[in-house]
């Protein structure tokens, strides 16, 4: 298991390999469908995303005693952001994208070109991942609705699997090919 601790550098990220289990500690910023479209179309990010990590997540966050408390924070399916992700990796120098289900060839290419990795968090592990959030310094673009806002999360030992590294390797491409071959045998 490899610790990926902020500051997230190109060097740290290029050292990761497909299949590695990592624990992320530092800031991550949630962003999903509305945010990706907004940023892709040239919107100004409300926070500095340079060398940061975007987390594909629509959390459940409730205000208790004037503080934000994360009630559930598992990943959303990343492939929906495939049209936008490569551009944002390039525009902001994102060091990692956390999500689930993987992303496509455009994103894989951007990861290799710009030094970024795709970290697959465990889908549905909303409570395990909520416990990794130690602080919610802020929330932005709330007009998109709570699940679609940018939530700033400080995380500690957030577990994920490197399924797309910065060297053109994708576990998703491999499993897809292999399962398609298996299907031919079965039908």
């Amino acid at each position, binding site marked *: 298991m490899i610790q990926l601790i902020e500051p997230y550098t190109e060097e740290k990220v290029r050292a990761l390999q497909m*299949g590695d*289990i990592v624990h992320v500690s530092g800031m991550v910023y949630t962003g999903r469908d*509305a945010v990706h479209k907004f940023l892709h179309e040239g919107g100004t990010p409300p926070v500095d995303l340079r060398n940061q990590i975007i987390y594909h*997540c*629509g*959390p*459940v966050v*409730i205000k208790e005693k004037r503080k934000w408390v994360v*009630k*559930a*924070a*598992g990943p*959303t*399916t990343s*492939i929906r952001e495939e049209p936008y992700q490569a551009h944002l990796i390039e525009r902001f120098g994102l060091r990692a994208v956390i999500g*689930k*289900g*993987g992303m496509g060839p455009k994103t894989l290419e951007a990861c290799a070109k710009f030094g970024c990795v795709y970290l*697959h968090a*465990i*889908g*549905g*592990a*909303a*409570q*395990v991942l*909520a*416990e990794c959030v130690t602080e919610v310094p802020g929330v932005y673009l709330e007009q*998109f*609705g*709570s*699940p*679609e806002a940018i939530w700033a999360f400080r995380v500690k030992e957030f*577990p994920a*699997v490197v*399924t797309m590294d910065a060297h053109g390797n994708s*576990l*998703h491409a*491999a*499993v*897809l090919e*292999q*399962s*398609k071959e*298996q*299907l031919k045998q*079965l*039908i």
Partner: protein
Amino acid sequence: MRNLRANLLELIRRTSAELPDDVFRVVDRGGAEEQAGTAGKYAMDIITKNIDLAKRKSQPLCQDTGSILFFVKAPVGFDQMAFEAAAKAAVAEATAKGYLRQNSVDSVTGKNSGNNLGPGSPSLHFHQHRGTQLEVRLILKGGGCENVGAQYSLPDTRLGANRDLDGVRKAILDAVVQAQGRGCSPGILGVCIGGDRATGYLFSKEQLLRTLQDVNPDPALAALEQEIVASANRLGIGPMGFGGKTTLLGCKIGVLNRLPASFFVSISYMCWAYRRQGFLLADPGKIVKWLY
């Protein structure tokens, strides 16, 4: 019906935070199948930890609390409008408490309603019966798994699938391959053979009301259900699509009559966080038993 709103709030809380026993047993067994040291095993270990944590904290198993689907079996003369009002109040309260995520978005304006209410949400399905008790079942079905459902029209040339159970088998296995891990595998399928495009999909979701250990009363369908699970697990997609032995935990197939011209196979993919619960309610407002 006294206490209906409070009972429905408790139903929502329990459905969101606690995996039903029949599902837990199968998820647990699936985890044991995965090889130590693999990413698939790692995923199942975290899933198991998550199930326990969600129950202890009374917080959502998964942050995508999904579509809110109520299935109600009610006596003749039952006031459905009153039930709907109580259900909506319970849903809004559950959202404020964080048992449900704010999940209802206007499809034209993009505005989130903030309380899970809006056209089509919650979704209510009523059936009458001649008894005196009220049976209320709830499924919370996340968007990730909803997105990997599929509806096939047979014959399908690409799959070489004809209008027979073998064609149905091919369509279902193809759907599992298309889904990969994106429905948060290992998953469970609800399938309907027949119906029209709308009734087919709805009946496929009603198959998800069955317990995982039940046996289809039609021997041909029972055999097909088992065969599909065995075959799907040979595809090697595994938990989260990481690769592994556990791709499908169950497959439940129902049948409706069809038009001569149509032969639909409607497949609803349910994720491992199979949130399904229900209760039997006697008048006045006492929960007689939980159904799962």
